[in-house]
C-alpha cells in the first residue's frame, strides 16, 4: 500500500530550482532516506511533504489523499527537527503529550500513551525533566517520541543526528531505526551522511541538484550506481578515464584491465571507470599480472589501510587493504607495486552519464 506519493514536484527559490520534477513513492511501513550533498534539495523536499513549504508544481498524496492545499496540522505527519525544537517551557511529558492535549484526549489516555512512548524510546526516567536538563541524544529521543505520539501517517526526519557526537550518532542510528520499526511508522529520513543512509534505510533516494538520480535498496545504490556521481557519493570510488576498443576491451592509459564493456559502450573513448578502493587488489611487483604503480602515501584507518598509488596518469588510485594483509606485504611509501581492479565490481559509465 502506498503511503506517500510525490508526483512531479518542483520548487524554485528565485532562479534556483531547489526541487526539480521529483517523483517518489513510499510504501506503508517503509523507511526511505533522501541523501545528497548540501543544497541538493533534500530538506526542501521534506518540508514540502510536511507542508512548511508549498511546491510550485506537482501532486502530493498521503494515503491516496491530495494534501498540497492542507496546512501541516491537517496532514497527520510527524516531524523530527535537526535542532530538536523541543518546547523549553514544557517537561518531557508535556512535550510528548502536547499533540494529544491539542486533540483533547482524556488525561489517562494521554498519560498512558506518553508512558508507552517513553518506554519505547527508553526515556521513562526522564519524563518529568525539562529539555535543557537532557543530553543531546536524550533530547533527540524525546523529539522522536513527540513526533510519534499522535500516530502520524508519515514520520519525517530532517537530519536528526547531525547535531550529535560521532559515537552517539552511530548508536542512535540503530536506536531510531528500531523505535520507528517497533512503532510501525512509515518514515522519510533526510541526511547528507551516506553511511547513515545505507545503514538505516529500506530504500535510499540519492538526490543531486534538485533531482532524484537513483532510488534503490542500499545494496543496489552501493553496488550498482547508475552514474559516476552516485558511485562517488555513496562510498568512495576511484574514477579513471578509460576507453573501449571495438570488441569492448577496456584500457586505462593504454593498458588492458580485464574489464569488458557492453556493446553500447564499445569503441568509445570517453568512458569513466569507477572502482571502489576495496575492489582494488595490490601486490608486490612481479608476483601477479597487473598494472604498475608506486605507493605515494598510506593512511592507517584501524582495520584497513588505505593506500594511494601513483599510476602515472595524474589521478592516483586508492586501494583498501586489510591491515594484516598490508603488514604481510611489508611495503612502504615509494615501493613499486602492481595493482588490479576487480572486473566483477568495476562500473563503466559513458561521458554523458558521468556527472560533472
Amino acid at each position: 500500500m502506498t503511503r506517500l506519493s510525490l508526483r512531479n514536484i518542483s520548487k524554485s527559490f528565485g532562479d534556483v530550482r531547489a526541487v526539480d520534477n521529483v517523483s517518489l513513492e513510499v510504501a506503508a511501513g517503509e523507511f526511505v532516506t533522501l541523501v545528497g550533498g548540501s543544497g541538493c534539495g533534500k530538506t526542501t523536499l521534506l518540508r514540502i511533504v510536511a507542508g512548511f513549504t508549498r511546491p510550485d508544481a506537482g501532486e502530493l498524496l498521503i494515503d491516496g489523499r491530495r494534501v498540497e492545499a492542507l496546512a501541516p496540522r491537517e496532514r497527520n505527519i510527524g516531524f523530527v527537527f535537526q535542532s530538536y525544537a523541543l518546547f523549553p517551557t514544557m517537561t518531557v511529558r508535556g512535550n510528548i503529550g502536547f499533540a494529544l492535549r491539542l486533540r483533547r484526549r482524556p488525561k489517562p489516555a494521554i498519560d498512558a500513551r506518553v508512558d508507552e512512548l517513553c518506554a519505547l524510546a527508553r526515556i521513562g526516567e526522564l519524563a518529568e525533566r525539562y529539555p535543557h536538563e537532557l543530553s543531546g541524544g536524550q533530547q533527540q529521543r524525546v523529539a522522536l517520541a513527540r513526533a510519534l505520539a499522535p500516530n502520524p501517517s508519515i514520520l519525517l526526519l530532517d537530519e536528526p543526528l547531525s547535531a550529535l557526537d560521532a559515537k552517539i550518532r552511530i548508536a542512535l542510528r540503530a536506536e531510531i531505526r528500531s523505535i520507528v520499526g517497533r512503532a510501525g511508522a512509515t518514515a522519510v529520513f533526510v541526511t547528507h551522511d551516506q553511511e547513515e543512509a545505507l545503514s538505516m534505510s529500506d530504500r535510499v533516494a540519492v538526490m543531486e541538484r534538485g533531482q532524484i538520480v537513483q532510488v534503490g535498496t542500499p545494496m543496489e545504490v552501493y553496488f550498482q550506481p547508475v552514474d559516476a556521481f552516485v558511485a562517488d557519493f555513496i562510498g568512495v570510488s576511484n574514477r579513471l578515464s578509460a576507453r573501449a576498443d571495438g570488441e569492448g576491451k577496456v584500457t586505462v592509459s593504454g593498458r588492458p584491465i580485464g574489464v569488458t564493456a557492453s556493446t553500447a559502450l564499445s569503441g568509445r573513448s570517453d568512458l569513466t571507470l569507477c572502482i571502489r578502493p576495496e575492489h582494488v587488489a595490490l601486490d608486490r611487483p612481479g608476483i601477479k599480472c597487473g598494472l604498475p604503480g608506486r605507493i605515494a602515501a598510506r593512511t592507517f584507518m584501524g582495520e584497513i589501510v588505505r593506500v594511494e598509488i601513483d599510476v602515472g596518469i595524474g589521478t592516483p588510485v586508492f586501494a583498501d587493504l586489510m591491515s594484516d594483509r598490508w603488514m604481510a606485504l611489508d611495503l612502504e611509501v615509494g615501493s613499486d607495486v602492481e595493482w588490479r581492479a576487480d572486473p566483477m565490481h568495476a562500473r563503466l559509465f559513458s561521458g554523458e552519464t558521468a556527472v560533472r
Partner: protein
Amino acid sequence: MSRFSGGLAALAIGIVFGLFILVPIGAVLLESVRVQRPVAPAEMRARTVAALDLMEADRRAAVVTRWVQTLNPRQRMEVTAATLAALGLLVTWDRQAAFDEQIVAATGAVERLTPEQRTRFEAEFPVQTVVVHRRIPLAFQLRDRLDPAEFEALRSGVRTGFGIDHLAAFLTEQRFQRIARNSILLALVTSALTVLIAYALAYAVTRGDLRWPGPVRAAALVPLVSPPVIIAFAIILLFGRQGLITKGLLGDMLGLVNPEQFNVYGFGGVVAAQVLSFLPHAYIVIENVLSQHDGRLEEAAVSQGATSSQVFRHVTLPMTMPGVTRALLLVAILSMTDFGNPLVIGRDYPVLAGAIYDEILGFQNKPLAAALCLWLMVPTIGAYWLAERIGRRRRHAAVGGTGGPPELLMEPALRGALSVFSGLVVAFVALLYLTVVYGSFTRVWGIDFSLTLEHYLFDPSLDTGLQAERGIPTVWTSIKIAAVAAPIGGVLSLLVAYLAERVRPPGAEALAFLALLPAILPGVILGIGYLIFFNAPFGFVDLAITGTAAILIVNVLFANLYVGVLAGRAALQRLDAATDEAASVLGATMVQSFRLVTLPMLRRTLVLSMLYVFIHGLTTLSAVIFLVSPDHKLASVGVFLNAEASHYGLACSTSVVILATVLVALSVGRAVDRPSRRTGVRQQLQVEALPAAATAR
C-alpha cells in the same frame, strides 16, 4: 502555517492600530492645514435670512424690531455701512476715521440717498442689523432648530477651509525662527555633552575595572524610570534663587555668590536637566556597542605595539562610532521633543516643544500647534532615517565578532581619572534624588525648612484642592490606568511580534511599523492627535472618549506598545523557529501555537513589555498632558504642574511615591521572572533591559 487565521488576526490588529495610531496622527496632519476664514457678506446674509425664516413670522417681526431699536450709534453706523455695501452703493466716508466722525458721516450719507435708494435701504437695514450685530443671539434663540454645524457657522461667521497659513507662519514669523534656533542649539549641546558623559561612564564600567560598577550603572539608568522633570526641579531646589547650594552654601554661608543674580532658569539649566534625563538612553546604546564588540581586536592592536591612546583612537573609537552616532541622534531627538524640562527650568529659553504646549493649553490654537508638530517631525523623521541607515551598515561590520572585553590592563592614570569622574556623577545624581526626598518632607523650600508630613497626608477637609488635583491621590489613578494598559499592551505587542516573525501574513511588517510610529514621532503628536480625533471620532460626538479614563489607557497603551514589539521580535529571532513548526505538525492552530508554545517561551519578554507600559504609564508626560481631565488626573502630569507652579513640596512627595511604586513594580517583575528551572537560562530582569529595545529605535 494557518495563513487564514494569521491574516484575520493581522487585519483585526491593523484596524485597531489604524484607529488608535494612524488616524490620530492623520488628524494632526489634517488639523495643521485647517484655517478659518470669514464667510463672504453675501453668503452670511443668505445664511442669516434662512435662519430668520425658521422663526414664526410675528415673533420674528417683534424680535428684529427690538434689535434694530437697541443698536447703539456706533453699531448703527456699522450696519449702515454694511447695508450700503450690500446694495452696491458706495461707502463715501473714511472707515478708518474716529467713530464719532464716522457716525456723523454715515447719517449724512443716508440723507443724501435718492428716494428709490432710500426705500431699498430701509428694507435692507433690519436684515443687515441681524447679519452684523445680532447674529449670535439669533443663533442661540434657534439653537434647538439648527443642526450643530449650522449653529456653529451662524454663530462664528467663519468658515473652516484648508490652507498652509499655519505651516507658513513657522517660516515667516520671527518668534518661531528664534524658537527653532533655540531648539537646535539645545539639541546639539545636550546630545554632545550627554554622549560624552555616557561614553566615559560606559567605558569605565565595561573596561575600567571599577571597584563598584553597580552604583555607576544605577546612577546612569535611574532617570529612565523616574517621574518627569524630577531632575529639573531637583536642580532648582539646589541651584535656584532659594537653592540649597546657591543660597544656603555659597551665598549665606560662604558669601561667594549672590543667589539673586544666579539664574538657573535658562540655557544652562535646561542643558543640565536634559543631559541627566537622557543619560540612560545614551548610556545603554554605548554600553551595548562597547560590550558587544570583540576585545580581541584591542589585544591584537596592543600586540602590534600600540599605546593605550592609540588603541582607543584607532580601534575602540572607530568600532564604537556607529553607537556614538546613534546615541547622538537619539539624544538630539529626545532633547528637541522634550517640553517638560524647558518649561520647568527654561522659561527664559523658549523652545519648539514648549511652544506647542503653549499653543494648545494656553491659546487653544490647535491648528497652529498641529503645524508646529509637523515641523518638529522633520528632524525626528530625518534622525530615524539616519539611525536606520547606520544600523544597517553596522550589521555588516559586526559579522563574526565573538564579543568579550579585552583582557588588558588599563593605564593607572586613566583608570584613576575614570573612577573619579564616575564617582562624581554618582555623587551628583544621588544628591539630586536625596534633595527630592528631603524636599518632600520640607514645609516650604527656601523659606521654612521645618520638617512636615503635610505633602504626603491627604486630608480632604483641609485640602485647598491642590492635593486632590496634583498630589498623592493622583498616583492611585495613574496606577489604575497603567495597570489596565500594561497586560493588554504586553500581550498585544507580543502578538504583533509573533505575526511579524513567524506567521508572516501579508501586511505583518506594516503592522510592526505602525506600532513603532509613536516612538519615531514626537510624543506630543499622539497626544494632540487623540485630543483632536477622539473629541468627535469621524464626526460623531457620541463616540467621544475625551475626558474619560479610556483615552488615557489607550494612549499609554499604544504609545508604548513598540517596546514589546521590538523586544518580542528580537526574542523570537533568537528562539528556534522550528518549535513553532513542531507545534503546527502536532496539530496546533496558530492561536494554540501562540498561546501554548510561543507565549510561555516569551514569558520574560512579556513581563518586560508589561512593565515598560506600566512604568511609562506612571512617568509619561508628553502625550497624556493634553488628555487629562478634571475627573481623571495623572500623577506624572501633577508633578509637572506642581513643578511649573513652584509647589515643590507636592512635586517632591508625588515623585517619591511614583518612584517607590516603580521600584516595587520592578521587584515584582523580577520576582515573577526569577531564574527559572524551565528554560535553564539564568533570567534576571534588569532596569536597563527595559528600554534596550526603545533605544534601538
